[in-house]
């Protein structure tokens, strides 16, 4: 059964029903060895249930899960070589750091010297060589995080599951831990399956990301693919920021679609990968703020693009935004650079907006699909 090329983790047709509610609906995927794989989705999308099935805390209603090519359906959680870092870490408060890390080794009956050696080794690898005798409550948030990972990694798992472990940390620490997690994963060279609702965590750390919604995977791909070539309206809306309008297709010409938003703005766009739209279809249009070009309009200038007026400026350094009200009444968010010079846009100013057609993606509206 086990072949050298078997993926670390493979799910085929996994479903989970809780009574009449289908939490996970027919999910299939494979994760090659050594990948940082994220499952990204809003809360309640079923990602935690999926992870608990992989860990063995829930049994799938249908389908199968393979670890290193071997089905684990009848393997209880304590026999699966899949370790998990819990949302609130679940470090054992009645034990010190050393005992926490040694716990799993003791369960499999490793002898004393071996335990001491392995624990010290893993502590070195997470760059906390001297904390063995500390109590859990003496550790900082980031240290706890690393101990929770060390506790799993000391057992040399085939797959490490991480259930939103950064959720409880404050913003600064979270940013630092993102980088650190990625480095740890490189160092251990183990497959990480990371669950999160935070798209920036998923984009920054992952080799591949699965976007999950309503119990299904909407799209699996590299972060770049998800960002630049979304395949569904949900992915386009959930990953990264986007302006989003509903509208109706008024005409198609080759790969180009002309549509009119509910507000009456006429826009040209391209249909999302693998989707088809026809004249008269209800669609949703997505344009990312950073792809919109904003120019000051002078009365003499020839009109290009859409004209509007700056309603508001949201200053946030390099990530500043302008809210532009189009003549039709639609509101557009546009990334702008505010240098503090005289060239900056100001509220009330007349501007014109334009973007390249390839950066305006439309999808058939949800009801139609």
């Amino acid at each position, binding site marked *: 059964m086990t072949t050298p090329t078997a993926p670390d983790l493979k799910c085929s047709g996994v479903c989970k029903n809780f009574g009449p509610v289908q939490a996970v609906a027919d999910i299939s995927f494979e994760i090659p060895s050594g990948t940082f794989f994220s499952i990204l989705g809003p809360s309640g999308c079923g990602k935690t249930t999926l992870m608990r099935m992989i860990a063995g805390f829930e*049994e799938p209603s249908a*389908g*199968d899960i393979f670890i290193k090519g071997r089905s684990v359906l*009848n393997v209880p959680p304590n026999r699966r070589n899949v370790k998990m870092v819990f949302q609130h870490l679940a470090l054992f408060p009645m034990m010190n750091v050393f005992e926490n890390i040694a716990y799993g080794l003791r369960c499999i009956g490793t002898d004393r010297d071996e335990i001491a050696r392995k624990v010290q080794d893993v502590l070195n690898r997470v760059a906390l060589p001297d904390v063995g005798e500390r109590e859990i409550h003496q550790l900082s948030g980031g240290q706890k995080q690393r101990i929770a990972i060390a506790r799993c990694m000391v057992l040399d798992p085939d797959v490490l599951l991480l259930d939103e472990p950064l959720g409880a940390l404050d913003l600064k620490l979270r940013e630092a831990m993102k980088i650190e997690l990625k480095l740890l994963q490189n160092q251990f060279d183990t497959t990480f399956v990371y669950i999160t609702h935070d798209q920036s965590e998923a984009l920054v750390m992952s080799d591949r990301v699965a976007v999950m919604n309503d119990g299904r995977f909407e799209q699996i791909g590299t972060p770049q693919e998800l960002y630049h070539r979304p395949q569904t309206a949900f992915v386009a809306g959930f990953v990264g920021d986007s302006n989003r309008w509903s509208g109706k297709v008024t005409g198609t010409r080759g790969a180009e679609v002309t549509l009119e938003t509910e507000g009456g703005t006429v826009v040209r766009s391209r249909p999302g990968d693998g989707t088809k739209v026809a004249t008269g279809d209800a669609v949703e249009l997505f344009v990312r703020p950073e792809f919109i070009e904003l120019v000051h309009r002078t009365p003499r200038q020839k009109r290009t693009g859409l004209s509007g007026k700056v309603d508001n400026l949201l200053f946030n350094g390099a990530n500043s935004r302008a809210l532009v009200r189009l003549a039709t009444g639609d509101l557009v968010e546009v990334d702008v650079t505010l240098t503090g010079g005289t060239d900056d846009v100001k509220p009330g100013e007349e501007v014109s907006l334009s973007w390249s057609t390839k950066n305006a993606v439309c999808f058939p509206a949800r009801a139609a699909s």
Partner: protein
Amino acid sequence: MVNQERRLLPGAGSVMKHRDARRLSLILLFMPLALWIVLLILLPHIGMGILSLREKIGPRQYEFGLANYIAFFQEPIYWHIMARTAVISLLVTVLALIVGFPVSYYIAKIAGPRTRGAMFMFCLIPLWVSDLIRAFGWILLLRETGVISGILQWTGLASAPVELLYNDAAVVVGLVYTVMLFMIVPLTSTLDGMDDAMIEAGYNLGGNGLTVLRRIIIPYAMPGIVSGSIIVFMLTAGSYLTPVLLGGKYSSWFTQTIYDQFITRYNWESGAAFGFLLLFFTSFVVWIGLKLSGQSLSSTVARS
């Protein structure tokens, strides 16, 4: 399709096994509770109920009837004692509330964080000392040759030894003392949860001390007041030691009557009936209290 079915079956098998294990552990866990409640609470009370309905019509001759209960209502001395027990218990409850409320308020709202803990611990001290020793302490304080009498003579306020023991006042003081902490604990924990800003807002909106107390603090503390009062009332009505030791032989407390029937007169039938009457009566008062305040029994008891 076939493939999927094959995979489903073993999974289903382990689900079944899992379910059996769960059921077994549920039964095992339930056994102690069931044995305890059935053997020590339910059956004894049923047995006592049956016993209380047995009329003695001759030596070793019995028949079923309500005679033991009827005797209670026909014999004024019995229901007088019951009424007396009830009135004093209510008085003790009210006094405990009046004395305890300011103490709880001070601990919860006025004392600094460090003194707060110390004071609370201090209030709990009597809990760790048995009823008997507490009553004994009061005897030593109140009796003719006791400390208070001695102090009164020494300061010249009294010319001869004063007997402060063996009267209703001594019983009330002793009982208030005994149950005090069951009033203070729920009150303090309720008041502790109250946001100081609510009191300040009350003043800020123009209330004076009294209206703030009446309109804001007391309504907020109501759950604590109710749980404290219920516990205190039950403890008082069911107490035995304090009334007997501080009130003397003829303190006429209802539990004492039960004891007499059982141990002194060996009239178990009537003792059982009296026991039931006490149980009905206290449950009734507790029930009224809960109804009037809209609280539930488990939340009330859990609070203390």
